[in-house]
């Protein structure tokens, strides 16, 4: 089934071809069938907001297809991007489980399919399906590990250059792991948004990209960044 945004919609979770690859969705058939009964599927355009920081949580969202950015505003009114969520992630999970307001705003970076579960239905489902609640605990625990890593990066990175190098290496990690000769990443963020991720200014990010190119650490072509010297980028983290 095709949607207005050119997405191939997967309407039935029980027959989803990527279900087993995803941490939360890889559940026994009876649990997935129960999940299917309580979800509502929607498609959204790029730029749509799923929820807003401070809004009372009303439920959890599975990002079936697409990417989203999670951001908050600092007390000085700066936008701070917390992370980029990929397809398969459950969004709003922490707030729904803790019964607290959403702690971030979620904006879609591309057209997306999203499955929504109301808080009441979702909590009842988890209370009845032990394996699903284990998957939720595992997903939250992985988010904890990511958050500690973020603290290491923020608290112990000396410069914006180091933070940018760390971010590029993180995004390129799958390609590096697979031993790709040309480590390429496609940026879905603007320089302004990258600045909001590393706690810097747009001007600094643009200057750093120029500097990295001049030192032949990277090359760029449109939105594609090729990491030319991964060891040198890694060395920046160890200084």
């Amino acid at each position, binding site marked *: 089934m095709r949607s207005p945004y050119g997405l191939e919609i997967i309407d039935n979770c029980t027959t989803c071809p990527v279900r087993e690859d995803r941490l939360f969705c890889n559940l026994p058939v009876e649990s997935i069938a129960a999940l299917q009964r309580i979800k509502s599927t929607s498609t959204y355009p790029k730029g749509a907001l799923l929820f807003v920081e401070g809004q009372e949580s009303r439920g959890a969202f599975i990002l079936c297809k697409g990417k989203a950015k999670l951001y*908050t505003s*600092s*007390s*000085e009114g*700066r936008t*701070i991007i*917390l992370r980029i969520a990929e397809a398969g992630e459950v969004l709003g*999970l*922490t*707030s729904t*489980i*803790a019964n*607290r307001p959403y*702690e*971030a705003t979620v904006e879609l970076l591309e057209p997306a399919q999203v499955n929504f579960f109301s808080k009441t239905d979702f*909590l009842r489902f*988890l*209370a*009845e*399906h*032990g*394996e*699903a*609640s*284990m998957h*939720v*605990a*595992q997903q*939250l*625990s*992985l*988010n*904890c*590990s990511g*958050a*500690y890593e*973020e*603290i*290491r990066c*923020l*608290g*112990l*990175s000396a410069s*914006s250059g180091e933070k940018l190098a760390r971010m590029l290496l993180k995004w390129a990690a799958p390609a590096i792991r697979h031993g790709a000769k040309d480590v390429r990443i496609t940026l879905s963020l603007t320089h302004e948004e990258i600045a909001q991720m590393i*706690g*810097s200014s747009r001007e*600094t990010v643009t200057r750093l990209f120029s500097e990295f190119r001049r030192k032949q650490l990277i090359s760029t072509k449109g939105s594609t960044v090729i990491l030319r010297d991964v060891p040198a980028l890694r060395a920046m*983290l*160890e*200084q």
Partner: protein
Amino acid sequence: MTSGSVVQRIDLQYFAEILVKIVPDLPRPVVEWLWSAHRARCYSPAEFLQFEGEPSQGIFLIVLGQVRLSLSKESPRAQRIHYRDVGSPAVLGVSDVMSGSSVSLTAQALTEVQTAFVPKHAFLKAVQLLPQAGLAVSQFIAHDLRSTYSRINELRAQTYH
């Protein structure tokens, strides 16, 4: 993990009172299972309960005393960042056990510390005893995660340049 000194087991009622303050919806049979699996340990000031990066062995219920949590970066500078101090009642190590990752935070006793240590396999088995246990543990991790996100926001505001 350092061993601490092994002491007499904690009374079930006291164990349950402390645990349900932190994980309120944990079903009673699960609490009892955890109690039956626990080992009581004491730590002197400055002694370490766990070290970041080592394999996760289990969870610590802090029954008495104060613990400092910190993390570091692998680098020649060997910098260390103070994450936060926690006091009884508190639980350490739940997210590491659930995710199967290594220990995320170094924990060092600031005072005399008494703990109830539950080995990883026993904790995981307990959480799977009843579906409500998984949900209760998820709720605990969610609250912990929210405070971690608050810490991140503080750090981001401090390090903006």
